[in-house]
């Protein structure tokens, strides 16, 4: 235990990897560490699990340029060594942007996340987009239902604004949605509230915000 180190990795989840569920992504990382021959730490007990914690589940089908995980290794080793071992065995669709050592006593990663930022590229142009945004943002409440449960989407929207159109002329939106435990905004819900089908939008999570 005493020699363990805790690392934080910021990475992308793109291409076919965007269809990998939270649970399967966890397994994908376990296998990546195993291929890399790195001394992954396992939990104690009857059914030892690798000590890998993903920050925040990503809805299936959304790509991400800013996923975060914490992982524990059995013994300390230089970050550069870990990085080069991982780089050679990463599966398609995963790129590591950042790798750092963090304190063993830090709070659990999911509890440190407060918000997530998304970029939405709208493939079928919406003529009154600015108007729709203005109306939505002027509301105090956006009562919606998801999986049979009512909730208010409005307080979960921390920011919603337009980004410059792409070179090809596609409209783009930027959203910053709450991502606290029990208070997580989903980008498809925001699009739906704007009357935009998520099927005609390419969504990317660009960043997770930590406390």
């Amino acid at each position, binding site marked *: 235990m005493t020699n363990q180190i805790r690392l934080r990795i910021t990475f992308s989840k793109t*291409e*076919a*990897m965007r*269809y*990998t*569920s939270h*649970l*399967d992504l966890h*397994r*994908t990382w*376990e*296998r*990546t*560490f*195993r*291929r890399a*021959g790195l001394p*992954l730490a*396992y939990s104690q007990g*009857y*059914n*030892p699990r*690798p000590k890998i914690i993903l920050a925040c589940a990503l809805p*299936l*089908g959304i790509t991400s340029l800013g996923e975060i995980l914490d992982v524990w290794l059995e013994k300390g080793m230089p970050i550069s060594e870990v990085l080069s071992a991982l780089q050679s*065995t990463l*599966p*398609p*669709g995963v790129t590591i942007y950042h790798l750092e050592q963090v304190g063993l006593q830090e709070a659990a990663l999911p509890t440190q996340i407060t918000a997530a930022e998304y970029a939405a590229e709208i493939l079928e142009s919406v003529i009154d987009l600015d108007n729709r945004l203005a109306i939505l943002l002027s509301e105090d409440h956006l009562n919606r239902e998801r999986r049979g449960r009512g909730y208010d989407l409005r307080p979960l929207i921390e920011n919603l604004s337009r980004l410059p159109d792409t070179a090809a002329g596609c409209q783009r939106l930027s959203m910053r949605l709450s991502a606290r435990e029990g208070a997580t905004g989903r980008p498809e819900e925001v699009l739906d509230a704007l009357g935009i089908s998520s099927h005609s939008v390419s969504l990317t999570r660009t960043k997770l915000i930590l406390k």
Partner: protein
Amino acid sequence: MVQKPGRYTGGELNQIVKNWDATETRVALVFPEIYDLGMSNLGLAILYDQLNQRHDTLAERAFCPWSDMENAMRAAAIPLYSLETKHPLADFDIIGFSLPYETLFTNTLNALDLAGIPLFSAERTTQHPLIIAGGHATFNPEPMHAFIDAFVIGEGEEVIHEIVDTYQEWRRSAAPRPELLEALANLWGVYVPAFYEAHYHPDGTFSHLTKQLEAAPLPVTKRIVPQLPPPVTRFIVPYINTVHNRVPIEIMRGCTRGCRFCHAGMVTRPVRERSVEEVVTAIEGALAQTGFEEVGLLSLSSSDYTHVVDLVRAISERFTGQHLTISLPSLRIETVSVDLMDALKDGRRAGFTLAPEAATEKMREIINKPVSTPQLLDTAREIYSRGWTTIKLYFMIGHPSETINDVQAIADLCKAVLAEGRKVLGNRAKVHAGVSTFVPKPHTPFQWVSCDTVENIRAKQDLLKRQLRGKGLKLNWNNPEETMLEAWLSRGDRRLAQVIYQAWMNGAKFDAWHEHFNFQAWWEAFTALGLDPAFYTHRQRPIDETFPWEHISTTIRKKFLTEDYLWSQAGDTRVDCRNQCFACGILPTFAEIRREHPGKAWGCPEVKSRRKGDKSNTILIEQVAVLD
């Protein structure tokens, strides 16, 4: 969005993508089930590896889409495509279907249809891909004869190359399609059904086959590889969870036990083993390339692998502390098996599986899987006392000459095993009984036997359901109607092809899935074609009946099967044929190959020369003939 889109994307770690335009021959390997099941099939991985080793060939994968995706594809007119380069299947030169079991037949038709390829072989032209199929279900290829251009009978590792070579020569010659089929028919282990015609007696039973092409072989002898090739180590790592998400390593092929119900045990002879070193090196290589956390050591009977103790020791020395789960299935019912599993300890002690198949000693003698009940209980006690809380017991009902007392004995035995567990663990002990229904399979000593009726099966299952309830007991069983389908298709003749087609037209597909199984579609198909399903399943066949699959030679002689069947009726058992060669037919047929591959890797006795040998373990061809 469709369920689990990760099934349809490809792009996984270790997939092989070649330059489409620069590659001479393109092969699509299709496992006609969903990705989650197909990716767990070792046969597919072996052929993918073999074909992609060739510079002139590429092999890509395709699977059946689940209904939601199929509907979306049909609505958008998207043909079935390969995962690697997303080419429509119709653009490939060769499409190879893997058919390990019969409930994949309608899916095969559905896949061809989704690919926009004519279903019937006779309707395909030079512009269409060559459609081949192999796998255990093709040891009786007749029900699928109308849809497949050429079947591979037996092992594919070598013949697949000969098929590709033959295809390439034909393409260069620009000859008409029948010439390709003719050339294929001349390969050892390849069956081209178009070159044969089936004839029947007035009572509907099969009479004989006539050749439509002089050069076509009759019988068609199954293919074997003299020596198992190096195991595959570069497995594709799926992005999503699959049924067996692990490294599969075959330690041994074939079986010497001779359980009379066992199709695999008959058709995969002779026994060939891999060395411990080869297995361990393969595990290391595969783990480095995949990162999998589980390894499955595959064979039909792990306990019979000559070096099983050494293998287990080597694995536990080499991989301890790596959080690796090793599964060693198909262990014999004896305490040594518990030692083996103990040595592979992985922390998890969930369930220990034993397959007595029948609950009385008499019945176990009939099926030639003799184990005494005290030995079974001793083994159970040992398992519980080493920390496993659950024992899974596999049985079959519907064995020949089975009575309700034999079924009652299953319940009694499960309770007796549980009682052993309770002595050690108290109420924590559990028994899970898996009770499937016996289907008499072609090429086995039980091929003459009638299949139990649905009513009988239900009555037997009801008895077990009443008895095997309560704390610590769990029972699984099969739908008897699904068993009937398996029986029709595995024992069918050429007339079944129209039934399969009609059933598929009626909506049958994914027959192995409870939620898709459509008994009505099959029943109506039989009715429409004026065939009686009971003719195929509930008919005790006379001992001199000619079977519609006899032109497919597993090299096990009918005389041997007949004798073994008669022995079963007399309650006589056969010992492991490593102790005594019974001249089943393997060795006389493959004597030359055995002579060229001496040593312990084969389970059959050595064949050193045609002249008298001097070693006691050397059996001569003449002696084999005498034994016969």
